[in-house]
């Protein structure tokens, strides 16, 4: 079975890189209660992929500018600026997220319906992990390494403004600026992963590993550790099961991720009552 998996090792490496990047940023997504901002960004990023596929189908490649990742990244960054700005007049923040999510989903589906590519619909929904090449993995690493370096370097600043923004402000922190940095890294990771992992898996990696981490640890360091470990385990196990059993990789990884959350919840319960 493992030898079959090894045939797709480049794809597995790519999935592991996506798991790593999303599971680190996901800790902030869950703790800051912006899970649905993550969902909306994922949907917008996905609509960007759909737009690129539609443009390609219509013969409008725009000299390479209509590359799915490029279009997805541009749309996601616009959305990031919108969410990080925090000014939406009288519309409640959660309603704004809901509007963005539903409009992006609708536009994405409409564009995909008219895209010429036969595989476009599948890619739009569940990504194309098996299609990840060595070059794709290197691109994913080129995004992930700087993002993780930023998070390591500015850990205490990002933590402080996330935990207690008012006090951070009194100590001279530009809270909006740090919010923007966090959202930008979130947007870049989502956009770079979307073409391969799809909406479901990217959203899964942003939420479930972080929840597993929170269930298994009482310290920030422990939460990051378990979040990353559970995401990597889910990616490896889910991928390894999907290949020989001819299952779609994204949903298989998501399902394993869900099992890990339930196991962690069970462990937490046992420890709490033990």
């Amino acid at each position, binding site marked *: 079975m493992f030898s079959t998996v090894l045939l797709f090792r480049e794809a597995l490496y790519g999935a592991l890189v996506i798991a790593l990047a999303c599971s680190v940023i996901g800790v902030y997504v869950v*703790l800051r209660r912006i899970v649905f901002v993550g969902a909306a960004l994922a949907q917008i990023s996905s609509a960007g992929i759909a737009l690129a596929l539609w443009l390609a189908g219509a013969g409008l490649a725009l000299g390479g500018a209509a590359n799915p990742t490029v279009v997805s990244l541009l749309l996601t960054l616009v959305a990031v600026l919108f969410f990080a700005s925090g000014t939406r007049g009288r519309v409640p923040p959660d309603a704004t997220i809901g509007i963005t999510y539903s409009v992006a989903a609708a536009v994405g589906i409409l564009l995909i319906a008219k895209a010429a590519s036969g595989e476009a619909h599948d890619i739009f929904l569940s990504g194309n992990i098996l299609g990840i090449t060595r070059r794709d993995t290197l691109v994913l690493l080129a995004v992930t390494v700087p993002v993780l370096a930023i998070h390591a*370097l*500015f850990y*205490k*600043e990002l*933590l*402080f403004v*996330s*935990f*207690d923004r*008012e*006090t*951070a*402000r*009194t*100590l*001279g*922190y530009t809270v909006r600026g740090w919010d923007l940095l966090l959202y930008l890294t979130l947007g870049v990771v989502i956009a770079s992963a979307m073409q391969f992992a799809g909406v479901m898996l990217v959203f899964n990696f942003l939420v479930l590993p972080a929840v597993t981490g*929170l269930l298994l*640890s*009482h*310290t*920030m360091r*422990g*939460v990051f550790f378990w979040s990353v470990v559970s995401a990597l385990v889910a990616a490896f196990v889910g991928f390894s099961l999907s290949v020989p059993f001819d299952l779609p990789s994204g949903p298989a990884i998501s399902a394993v991720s869900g099992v890990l959350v339930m196991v962690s919840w069970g462990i937490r319960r046992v420890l709490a009552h033990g």
Partner: protein
Amino acid sequence: MAPLVTFDRATLGYGRRAVLTDISFEIPEGDFLGLVGPNGAGKTTILRALLGSLEPLGGSVTRAPTLRFGYVPQRDQVDYSFPLKVLDVVLMGRYDRIGLGRRPTDDDRRRAHQALEHVGIDRLADRALADLSGGQKQRTLIARALVGEPNVLVLDEPTNGMDLVATTQILGLVRELHERDGLTVLMVSHALNEVSNYVERIALVVEGGFRIGTTDEIMTEQALSQMYGIPVEVKSVEGHRIVVARRRTIEVEGNRV
């Protein structure tokens, strides 16, 4: 000596809407001031202007160049779902001194332990913040404010949601920090009865009205009845002042209230 903060005919508000107009007062070094008033009266507006997160619409708010606030937010403003130990939270008070992208040193940790010892909870340094009682959480936030070595300690509703014992202990601790360490303290609260027995001066904010004076000047039936617009009685029980609403009408500056 120049005051640490000066409000000079300041008009405070949001957008074009003024909440408070013509506010003038100073906070000198060593002051122990209570900013008191009902919810929605404008305490937070004054607090934000003081801390510099709200620019006055008119007049001026001047802060001494050496001023450093030690801010203690309302307890429910802090998110307890973060898996943080007490020591981690206290260290945050030194983050701006540590500098961008740098990690806390052993000296920072030693100072954080000292701050915790100062507020009487060093034994809780390794406990999860979320597991503490309300009073212990408040002491943690006070320790975080102290570890940054401020010259003004600002507490926003420090006893909100606390029982009598915890309230008394926290207010006693704040008074001790003022008396023992000579720390300038500004305490924001809606609870006049609690604050008036601890602070030395009171700034009273009631529906756009503002009045400041020593506790003896403000805690009179005349002054309070005029500010609140209802007759009140100030009683003294074993040296503690208690303000109660009175049922009969009295004359205040020619008006029957």
